[in-house]
Each structure stands twice: as C-alpha cells, then as structure tokens.
C-alpha cells in the first residue's frame, strides 16, 4: 500500500466542518422538534464520527482488512444495541402465563 499524505487544506476543511457541526448540534437542540430532537443530535454525532474516522484516522486509506475489522466492530455494537432494545421495548406486549 502506498503511504498517503493528505494536504493541510484537507485537514483544515474537516476541522472547520467539525466545529460548524458542533455549533449546529448545540443550536438545533434548543428548537423543539418533538421526537426528532434526539434523531438530529445522533445524526450530527454520526456525521462527526465519520469525518474523524475517515479523515483524521485515515480509514479511507486503510487496508481492506482494517476496514472489515472496524465494520465488524460496528456490527457487534449494533447487535448489542438492537437486541437489548428489542427486549426492553417489547416487554409487556404479550401476557405472561400464570401472572
């Protein structure tokens, strides 16, 4: 793999974008969007995470093996979150026999 050196300009654009997104998430939180408030907050956080991971952590230049490992980690995190929530959300949907 050829070692890739990003320009300072690329890093600066990402840096400024991250600062703007921080301001945006702080301001959007003060507006009442109902259930969409948490969605917006997490959406902006995910975009910021992707910017840091892809550019600052150089994931976009990483080997396929590294990308698979990171993707696998996110998959397992998804299993943790989705399966646990599936349990807590669905409690009380069905009657418990003998209760």
């Amino acid at each position: 793999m050829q070692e890739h050196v990003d320009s300072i300009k690329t890093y600066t654009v990402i840096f400024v974008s991250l600062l703007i997104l921080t301001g945006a998430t702080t301001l959007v939180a003060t507006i009442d969007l109902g259930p969409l408030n948490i969605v917006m907050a997490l959406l902006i956080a995910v975009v910021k995470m992707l910017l840091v991971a892809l550019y600052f952590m150089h994931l976009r230049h990483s080997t396929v093996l590294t990308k698979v490992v990171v993707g696998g980690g996110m998959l397992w995190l998804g299993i943790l979150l989705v399966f646990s929530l599936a349990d807590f959300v669905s409690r009380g949907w069905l009657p418990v026999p003998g209760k």
Partner: protein
Amino acid sequence: MDSHIELPELQEQFETPEQQREVSTLGMWIFLVTEIMFFGGLFMAYTIYRRAFAGAFGLASNTMDVWLGAANTAVLICSSFTMVLAVRAAKIGSRKALIVFLILTILFGSVFLGIKAFEWNTKFVEHHVPGPTFHLEGASAGDQGPAQIFFSLYFTMTGLHALHMIIGEGLMLFLLWEAYAGRYSPSYYTPVDIGGLYWHFVDIIWIFLFPLLYLIARHQH
C-alpha cells in the same frame, strides 16, 4: 526475498516497513473495537434508563452548563486537528513541527481536563452527586431516584472518558520525549500514528457523550 529492505527499525518477521506498519494499525484498531464495545455497554445502559425515566433525565440533563460542554467539544476537536497535523509532520519527517503539534495536543487535552474538573466540582457544590445529600431542584420526590441514575451514568461515562484522556496525555508525553530524541522518521513513525488513532477515538466518544448528556432536553426550557 531480494526485495528485503535493510532498515534498523524493521523487525525480522516482516518483509517490508509497509507490512510492519499495517500490522500495527490493524492491532490498534482491534484494541479500539474492544473499546467501542466497552463504552457501548454504558451507552446501552444510558439508553434503557433514559427510555424508562425520560422526564427525570431531561431535568437532570438541563442542569449541565451547555456552553462549557460545547466549548470542551471544540477544544477536543482542536486537539484532534493538532494531532492529525503531528502525524502528518512525522510522516514527512519534520521533527520540529512534530514536537510543536504534540505540545499543542497536550495543551488542548489539559484545557479539556481543566474544564471537566471545574464542571465536576460544580456538581459537588450543587449537591448533584448521587448519595445521601443528593437533591435536584424542581424534581418531584419520585424523580430524585431516577435523576441519581442519570448523574451516576454522567460521572461513570465522563469519568472513564477523562481517564482515557489522562492516559492519552501520558502517551503524548512519551511521543514528545521520543520525538525530541529524534527516534521518528518517514520510514518509522508507527507510535505517532497509532497514538493518533487512540487520541481520535477518545474524541469520538466525547462527540457522542456531549449531545446525550448535555443536549437531550434543551428544547424543553
């Protein structure tokens, strides 16, 4: 292999410096994935309790100083920026720039920890630390318990994050020492590279902690 390159930094089990570097990067990412799962359990606990006690969590979250939180987020993003420039400096072999950017990263990290310490102190002064003297103004008697769950999660998550920051500061001091001694060159800068991965990972954790702990109920003010 006749293509074998003779370099003092190249360990004998590797064919090329690239292969050696890729193995280190992969190893660091595997460690970071275990860290994602470690913090993931805490985010899971937060989600379940917030779902059960949305009202108390909103009241408790609104006692946070949102401007200090936002400022700390900006400080941490600045430190990630100087860190990535430090890695770049190491990559192109600029020892002086590497030292300057490592010092800036350490300074930004210290500012973050200073603001965090101030916020923690405020929580102690306001009796917002879970325990016998806990009291959240404006919350009903029934909400005092769930509010303490919020603050327990707050102290656990920001505490573990701060611990990672302190470890990161130690790593940066080590990198600074080694950079000062001239140990890094374009053919060998792996410790700077994977130290940067760790630093950015800690930044990402805060990127999620900030909205979940400070911003969830701001619109109810």
